[in-house]
C-alpha cells in the first residue's frame, strides 16, 4: 500500500508498514526448566503471518506520534453534548494503579481482597446517597449495559407478577441506546413525541399508558438539556398503570447535589461513572454504568452482590430472583476506584458546585451564541444547550461545516445531528471544567465561523484546513470497507 508524500505533515505509517523481519521489542523472562512435550502439528502454527516486528524504541515513537494526531480534553474544551467531557483528575490515575488494586485477581478468596470489597461497598453507599436510590449494582460496564440491566430487572419484576408486559415507552429525544436496550430485553418500543417545550407531554403520556406498558425510559434533564419539570406527575401516571420509571442518568451532572432522582419517583436508573464521576473516556471506553434501584427491584439485582460478612465484606450470589450476570466477574473495578476517589475529593459541597458551575457555563454559552445561532427550544437549559444551523441555511452552510471549521480554531466540535428531533443540531456541553477564558475563546470561534458562513461559505465547505488530514470521505469508506491491513501477507 503506497501513500502520497505529504510535505506539511508526514503520515505516520502503520506498524505493519514499518515492520522489519528480525526486530523485536521485548524479551520473555528466562525459563531454565524443560520445554513442554511438542504439540501435534495440526494444533500449532509456526508464526503469525503479517504480525509486526519492531524495536521498543520504534513502538514508543509510533504511539507518541499517533497520540499527537488526537485532540484531547487536556488540550482544551471538548464540548460533546451528552458525553460530559469533564476533567480527569490525575490522582485518580494514580490510585487506580496502586498495586494492591491493579494486581488483584477477581477470583481471590474474599479475605485476600477486603480492600477491593470495601471500595465497592463505599461507592455503592455514596451512589445511593447521591441519587436517592436504595441499592446499586456496579457490574455494568457502560451506560448501555446499565440500561439493559435496569430494563431486564423491570422485566423480571413484571414476570414475577405473572405478566412481563410488552411495551417500553421512550421519548423521541432519547439516546439510541434506550430503544436498543429495550429491544434486547424482548420489548417492543413505542415512541412518544416531544411537545413544543421539547419535553414529554403529560397529556399524551397518559393516553399512551396502558396495562401492557412495562416501563417508561426517561432522560432527565433530557437531551435538549431541559429538565422535565413534570417528572413527579409523570412518575405518578406511570405507576398508576402498574408500570415503572427508568431514568437514563447520562445527564446527572446537571443536578448532582441539587436534587435526587430517587426523591422524584424514579424506580431504577443508571449513572455513567465516565461522565458525572470523571473517569477517563479513554478514546471510547472503558466506561462504567452502575444501576440503582428502589427496594421493590432490589431482589433482581445482578449477582454477586457485596454483603456484610462477620468480619468485613463478602460476595453473595444467594438471591434467587436475580437476573444473573451481565459482565464477567464484578465489572470495571478500576473505574470504581477512580469514581470513589472523585467523590471523596469533592465531598457534598464540591458535588453541588459541579452542578452549579456546569449549568452556569452552559447558560453563559447559550446567552452568547443564541441569536447568531438558532435556538430551537427556548425552555431553560441546564448543563447543555442545543443550537441548530437554521440561521446559516441561506448561505448553504450546514452543521457539519461548522463542526469541521471549529477544528481550525483549535476546538473539538460539539455533538452534531443529535437529538434527532432537532434538524442540524449542535449539542454543546461545556461541563464545569472550563474557565471563562476557554468559554470566551470558544464563543469567539463560533461567532467568527458564523461570519465566515456569510462571507466565505466555501471556506467552511472545505474545512478543516489545519488538521493532519482533511475532511475524510466517510461515504466511500462505507461503500467498500477496508477494515484491516492486508499488504505483505
Amino acid at each position, binding site marked *: 500500500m503506497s501513500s502520497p508524500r505529504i510535505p506539511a505533515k508526514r*503520515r505516520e505509517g502503520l506498524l505493519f508498514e514499518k515492520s522489519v523481519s528480525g526486530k*523485536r521489542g*521485548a*524479551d*520473555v523472562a528466562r*525459563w531454565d526448566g*524443560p520445554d513442554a*512435550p511438542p504439540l501435534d502439528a495440526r*494444533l500449532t502454527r509456526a*508464526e*503469525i*503471518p503479517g504480525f*509486526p516486528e519492531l524495536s521498543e524504541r520504534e513502538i*514508543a515513537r509510533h*504511539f507518541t506520534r499517533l497520540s499527537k494526531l488526537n*485532540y*484531547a480534553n487536556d488540550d482544551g474544551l471538548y464540548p460533546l453534548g451528552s458525553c460530559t467531557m469533564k*476533567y*480527569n*483528575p490525575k490522582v485518580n490515575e*494514580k490510585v487506580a494503579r496502586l498495586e494492591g*488494586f491493579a494486581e*488483584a*485477581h*477477581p477470583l*481471590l*478468596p474474599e479475605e*485476600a481482597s477486603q*480492600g*477491593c470489597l470495601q471500595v465497592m461497598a463505599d461507592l455503592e453507599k*455514596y451512589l445511593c446517597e447521591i441519587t436517592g436510590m436504595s441499592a446499586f449494582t456496579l457490574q455494568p*460496564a457502560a451506560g448501555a449495559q446499565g440500561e439493559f440491566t435496569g430494563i431486564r430487572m423491570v422485566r423480571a419484576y413484571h414476570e414475577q407478577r405473572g405478566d412481563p408486559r410488552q411495551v417500553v415507552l421512550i421519548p423521541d429525544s432519547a439516546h*439510541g441506546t434506550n430503544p436498543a436496550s429495550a429491544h*434486547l430485553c424482548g420489548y417492543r418500543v413505542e415512541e412518544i413525541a416531544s411537545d413544543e417545550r421539547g419535553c414529554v407531554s403529560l397529556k399524551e403520556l397518559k393516553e399512551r399508558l396502558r396495562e401492557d406498558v412495562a416501563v417508561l425510559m426517561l432522560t432527565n434533564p433530557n437531551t435538549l438539556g431541559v429538565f422535565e419539570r413534570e417528572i413527579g406527575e409523570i412518575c405518578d401516571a406511570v405507576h398508576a398503570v402498574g408500570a415503572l420509571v427508568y431514568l437514563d442518568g447520562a445527564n446527572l451532572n446537571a*443536578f448532582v*447535589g*441539587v436534587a435526587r432522582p430517587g426523591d422524584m419517583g424514579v424506580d431504577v436508573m443508571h449513572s455513567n461513572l465516565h461522565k458525572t464521576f470523571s473517569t477517563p473516556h479513554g*478514546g471510547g471506553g472503558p466506561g*462504567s454504568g452502575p444501576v440503582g434501584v428502589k427496594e421493590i427491584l432490589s431482589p433482581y439485582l445482578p449477582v454477586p452482590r457485596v454483603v456484610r460478612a462477620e468480619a468485613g465484606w463478602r460476595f453473595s450470589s444467594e438471591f434467587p430472583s436475580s437476573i444473573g450476570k*451481565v459482565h*464477567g466477574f464484578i465489572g*470495571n*473495578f478500576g*473505574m470504581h476506584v477512580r469514581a470513589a476517589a472523585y467523590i471523596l*475529593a*469533592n*465531598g457534598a*459541597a*464540591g458535588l453541588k458546585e459541579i452542578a452549579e*458551575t456546569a*449549568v*452556569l*457555563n452552559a447558560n453563559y454559552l447559550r446567552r452568547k451564541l443564541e441569536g447568531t445561532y438558532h435556538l430551537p427550544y427556548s425552555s*431553560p437549559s441546564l448543563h447543555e444547550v442545543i443550537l441548530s444551523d437554521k440561521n446559516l441555511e441561506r448561505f448553504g452552510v450546514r452543521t457539519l461545516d461548522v463542526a469541521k471549521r471549529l477544528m481550525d480554531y483549535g476546538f473539538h*466540535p460539539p455533538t452534531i445531528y*443529535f437529538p434527532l428531533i432537532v434538524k442540524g443540531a449542535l449539542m454543546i456541553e461545556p461541563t464545569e471544567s472550563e474557565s471563562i477564558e476557554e468559554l470566551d475563546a470558544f464563543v469567539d470561534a463560533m461567532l467568527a465561523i458564523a461570519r465566515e458562513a456569510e462571507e466565505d461559505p466555501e471556506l467552511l465547505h472545505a474545512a478543516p484546513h489545519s488538521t493532519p488530514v482533511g475532511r*475524510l470521505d466517510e461515504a466511500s469508506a*462505507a461503500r467498500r*470497507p477496508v*477494515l484491516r491491513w492486508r499488504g505483505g501477507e
Partner: protein
Amino acid sequence: MRYIPTSPSERRALLASLGLERVETLFDSIPEKFRLRAPLRLPPAMAEADLVAHLRKMAEQNLDPHTASIFLGAGAYRHFAPAVVDHILSRAEFYSSYTPYQPEFSQGTLQTIFEFQTMICQLAGLDAANASLYDGASALAEGVLLAHRAKRRNRVTIAGHVHPEYLAVTRTLTSTLGVRLESVPAGADGAVDRDRLQRSLGPDTAAVVVQQPSFLGRIEEIGPIAEAAHAAGALCIVAVTEAVSMGLLKAPGDLGADVVLGEAQSFGVPLSFGGPYLGFMAVRSEWVRELPGRLVGQAKDASGRLGYVLTLATREQHIRRERATSNICTNEGLMMLAATVFMATLGKQGMRELALQNRARAEYARNLLGQIPGCRVPHAGPVFNEFVLELPGAAAPVHRRLLDQGVVAGLPLERYFPERGRELLICVTEVHGKAAIEQLAASLKEVL
C-alpha cells in the same frame, strides 16, 4: 473545589452576565419540592494527600501481590507487561479524548483501532474485527446473538468446558430473545465429545460454541468441531479467554471457525479485580455487517491523503435505534490501546515465545504436582497454561491452609461446579519462576 477553574469573583461575573443574583435561580425548572434542603451525607472533601493515604490503606488490605505466590487464572491472567504499555496509556492525548466521532481530530485513536483490528484478525485467522467489546463474557453473548440473527435459528450448542461466567452472562443477555443454550458435556478425556456433539445438532442450531483452550486448560481440536457445525448449517464460534495462546495455536479461522471472540486482558491489561478488561470479536467477511460495536475503516480526504474513520455505522444504535445489531455504545478504547501496544511490542517472535513459555511452565508444574502422593492429574491431554489437579480429599480446606502461607493454589473448582470439590484449577504463566513452582509443590505436599 480544586478541579473547577472558576474563581468566586468569576462566578459572580458569570451570574451577572445572565442577569442573575443567585445561582439557585438556574435550577428553577426543578420543582422546589425535589430540591435538597440539606447537604448530601458524604465524607468531608479530602485533600489530595489524604485521599491517596486513604485509598492506599484500602489497597493494602488486599493480599500483597509481591510477597504472595498466586496461581490463579480462570479467565483473568497474570502476565508481565513491558513498561512501554502503561507509559503510552498514560498519555492524556489517548486517555482524555473520546470516541473518534470527528476523524480529522482523532486520527491517533482511529489508526490505533485499525492496527488493533488487523492484529486481532491475524491472530484469529479471520477477515474483520471490531474495535473491542466490554469483556470476554459479553463478547460471547454478542457472538451468540450474531449467530441468532445471521442464521435465524434459536438453539446454540455449548461444546465441552466453556467459562461458567461467560455462559451466565450469555444466558442473561440472550434469554429474552428466545435463544436456548444447550450444553454437550466433555468426554472422559476432558475434551469435546464429538459424537455427542454430532447428535446434539439439528436444523434449528444457530451455532456451536467451543472454548480454546477450554475452561479447564485443555487444547481442543477445532477442525472437526467446525466441520460438524457447518454440516448442520450452523456457525462455529471459538471463545478464547487466554489470548496468549493464539501466539502458538493454529488460528481458529484457519481451522474453520466463523467467529473468534473472547478476552484479551492478557495483552497488557492489569487484573484490576476483574475490569476494565477487553472483549474482542473477529468474523469472516460475510458477517461483517452483523458485527456489533464500532468498526474503523480506511478513508481518503479530498487531496487523496489516507486516514481512518468509524464506518458501517448504520449497524449501530445511534442510527438504527431498536433495530441495531447491538445496544453497545462505548467500546473499551483504552484497554484496546494497551493490547495494541502490547502486541506490537511482543511482536511476531515475542508472541510465540511467550506462548511457548506459558505452556512449558504449566506442563512442568502439572508434572511436578501430579507426582505428589495422593494427587492426580485427571486428564493427560495437552494443556496450555492451566490444568486441573485432583487432591486426595476436599480442596477448599487445603486451599485455605496454603493461603495462610501466602500461596493462592489456583481456583477451587467447587466455586463453579459443586461436584468438583476435590479439584483445583491451577494457572502458570511466565511470571512464575521455577522456584515458585517448586515451592508450590513443596507447600502442597506439606499441608496434605
